[in-house]
């Protein structure tokens, strides 16, 4: 029999930080005091902060142990749909930690920071080139901020045209950040349903599009992993009523080198460098959510912008139509270095990465569709969405199957999203998984599906191998304990 990765072994408990310390210990070196004490106004002086004092080895062990309770891409397959958990190359980390970068102050005079300005300028150009758009801003700190930026651009565009629109079309498959970002701009999301093929029909869009609608937020490929085949027609409908097309490009990993966002009719788009461009997600960030636009929207991009004149670079705020600033400085520069390194390393292979991402997803889809209900049985892009429909008769849920996958040594897929599929299981293998890994994962899912038939309690009690078992989330929300 095949050996699955999941097993149990020695793992170390570790108390909370403040259960460890002893006043007077020290875990870090301080620079030598070479000036006298200056008087401090007693009125300003606070108590010594109530932080535990630990030794260096205490701190090192604390976080070493904590780290071992985590599962990352480096631990194993992490097919978390919509999150593009591909391998995060180590060389990119080394590049981002170069002395010159980490020590760079963001307010250096332009001529003292030509290196970083050029890097940012190049990266903007690369992203525009990859998407087919005309200009880019790297300022948004994550996808959701990119969306907000996009909404602000659309808002500014209409305001410039003297048009006051207050609604935006958002498909039912959209990620939660889409309506939330739209709402920050006081746009009321108008929900449209995707059709029986899991994509938007032009008719549905036409039915809600009018001159009070600022535009549409469309995700392509969408969160069902399907390409929005009617995007051009939809864009035409929106454009014809003066609206703009915003594309959530979180799923760009499916179509690099293949699709042309501009040709699709997209006006504004965000990317997630922490998905498509291989920067590590860090257990929840930092990310970067650059925004790309077509030429005539460029004037609205956030300031400052990086300008080039004859090989010399400068920052400029001189864009009176700009939506303003979203970040104290220029966004997640450290993340940009990693994405930049990735793009230079991949070059034309980016297209191959997308092809293999799509191949992997279709392979999983084909090999699992007999045992899991496939929501839309069509060629998919970078991910495929199943549900627990076949398992419901045994009172086995998507959650149970996900938790059981942990015991087999895999990170579970995204679950219960997109909302249009009841009990969704959204699997995005990414291109960095080999066929053997996929086969092992497929075998694990099949074994679990069997267990669901034969011994469903195994699933309901899963995970059993982890240091903690299922946690009481209801209690956590009912009586929040957020600090200790």
């Amino acid at each position, binding site marked *: 029999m095949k050996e699955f990765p999941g097993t149990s072994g020695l793992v170390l408990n570790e108390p909370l930080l403040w259960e460890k310390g002893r006043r007077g210990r020290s875990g870090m070196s301080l620079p030598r005091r070479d000036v006298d004490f200056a008087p401090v106004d007693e009125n300003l002086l606070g108590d010594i902060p109530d932080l535990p004092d630990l030794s260096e080895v205490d701190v090192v062990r604390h976080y070493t142990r904590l780290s071992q309770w985590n599962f990352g891409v480096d631990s194993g397959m992490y097919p978390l749909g919509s999150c593009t958990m591909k391998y995060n190359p180590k060389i990119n980390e080394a590049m981002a930690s170069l002395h010159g970068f980490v020590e760079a102050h963001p307010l250096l005079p332009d001529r003292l920071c030509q290196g970083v300005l050029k890097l940012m300028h190049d990266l903007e150009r690369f992203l525009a080139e990859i998407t087919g758009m005309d200009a880019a801003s790297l300022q948004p700190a994550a996808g959701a901020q990119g969306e907000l930026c996009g909404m602000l651009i659309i808002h500014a565009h209409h305001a410039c045209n003297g048009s006051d629109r207050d609604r935006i079309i958002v498909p039912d498959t959209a990620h939660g950040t889409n309506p939330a970002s739209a709402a920050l701009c006081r746009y009321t999301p108008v929900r449209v349903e995707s059709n029986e093929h899991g994509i938007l029909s032009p008719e549905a869009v036409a039915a809600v599009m009018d001159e009070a609608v600022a535009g549409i937020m469309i995700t392509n490929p969408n969160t069902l992993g399907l390409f929005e085949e009617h995007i051009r027609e939809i864009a035409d409908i929106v454009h014809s009523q003066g609206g703009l097309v915003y594309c959530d490009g979180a799923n760009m990993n499916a179509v690099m080198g293949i699709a042309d966002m501009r040709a699709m009719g997209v006006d504004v788009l965000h990317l997630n460098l922490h998905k498509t461009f291989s920067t590590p997600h860090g257990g929840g960030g930092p990310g970067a959510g650059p925004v790309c636009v077509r030429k005539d929207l460029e004037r609205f991009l956030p300031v400052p912008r990086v300008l080039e004149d004859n090989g010399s670079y400068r920052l400029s705020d001189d864009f009176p139509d700009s939506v303003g600033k979203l970040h104290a400085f220029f966004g997640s520069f450290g993340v940009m270095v990693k994405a930049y390194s990735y793009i230079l390393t991949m070059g034309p292979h980016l297209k191959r990465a997308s092809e293999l991402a799509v191949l992997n997803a279709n392979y999983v889809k084909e090999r699992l569709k007999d045992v899991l209900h496939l929501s839309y049985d069509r060629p998919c892009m970078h991910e495929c969405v199943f549900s627990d429909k076949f398992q419901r008769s045994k009172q086995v849920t998507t959650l149970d199957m996900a938790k059981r996958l942990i015991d087999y040594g895999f990170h579970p897929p995204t679950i219960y999203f997109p909302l249009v599929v009841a009990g969704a299981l959204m699997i995005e293998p990414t291109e960095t998984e080999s066929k053997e890994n996929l086969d092992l994962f497929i075998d694990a899912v099949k074994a679990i599906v069997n267990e669901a038939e034969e011994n469903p309690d195994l699933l309901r009690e899963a995970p059993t191998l982890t240091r903690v078992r299922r946690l009481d989330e209801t209690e956590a929300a009912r009586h929040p304990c*957020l600090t200790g």
Partner: protein
Amino acid sequence: MRYLPHTDDDIAAMLDAVGVKSLEDLFETVPLDCRRTRDPDLPGPLTEWELTDRIAVSAENTAGPPDYKVYLGAGSYEHVRPASVSYLLNRSEFSTAYTPYQPEISQGTLQAMYEYQTLTARLLGMEAANASLYDGASALAEAVLMAGRVTKRTSVAISGVVHPFYRQVVKTYVQSAGYKLTELPYTEDGRTDLSPVDNMDEPAAVVVQSPNFFGCIEDLSEVEQKAHELGALFVTAFTEALAYGLLKSPGSLGADIVCGEGQSLGIPRSFGGPGLGIFTTLTKYVRRMPGRVVGKTRDLDGKQGFVLTLATREQHIRREKATSNICTNNSLCALTAAMFLASLGGTGIRELARLNYDKCEYLKRELREAGCTISFAGPTFNEFVVRFPKNDASMYDRLLAKGIVAGLPLARYFPELEGCFLVCVTEIKSKADLDVLVREIAS
């Protein structure tokens, strides 16, 4: 290509299983008119060694220590970062994980975030904290939005000596959401002049920053009184978290929301990002708080564990009604700050903050003696506004030529401060460095 594991045989077998003939055939659902007509025009692929050479050029083409002595602060600070913290951050179980949606295999991140929330709340004297926002500026914007939600009001008084970039970000975030901002002037001693607040109609919040953009420490008790008198939330921001190793915590002075930038806590400047948006508030407001938050709970066997909680505030559940659109936040930066605070401890942070304070006072005194004018008399932390002797603004360029960046010229942000510079000094600068600076200025 080392990141792509597929051999030709693998691809053939998989295409076969999928039932298509070629990789191109996988894209049949992409209409022809949505496709690229040419391959992207990109450099590469570069080998690891070509990449290293190329990026090194960019990195070297940027001024930093030891060649340059940079006296810039203004929201981004040069502080020590211990090797132990850098090492721990590299552990890929932390760095290559996603947001901890599956708590059973994410307890490392979750406990660390719970600890981070606790440490930041303690540092600021507050009751609760979230698990990070993008940076100090967007944290402040979120604070203003939250104050609006809590008070159901839309006008906001914001100090004019809040960092100008933070004010810009607040404006970007809240203006399209329909808020009205009133900017408060500053007094002669470099602190916020609160008097205009009296004329405001039901403000949602009174917002200051302390230490403020000029490095001056605000009188937070006065702000507290003003804000609460008017039924507004007392919101206070910071760009230099380390100040609270020394100063009275805003929580102890009655703040409702304390937020700001955590970069000083072990995070490199990295040309301004990623940073760390610290956000803390009172227990009564936690359900109105933006962003992710981790809570303590128990597992089926009663063992202590941690989960993302209060999700009903969030976009994936509440969509357009969410308290924020945050999904990805700045978790690894929060982890850095937690590691840094754990390494420093209470004893260490007081010592470090005091050292910063003392060096800054030393420099102020020496500069004054060298003929500079310190523009504002109020007490400061880490940075201050200075005018060179005889108001000689060309001094800045002369120092630059010697590898000294003598602070931030303020005219662009405060035209009335033409000829003034915001100078920052931290524990990194030795007395000898400071003496060189003073000598150069005096000579």
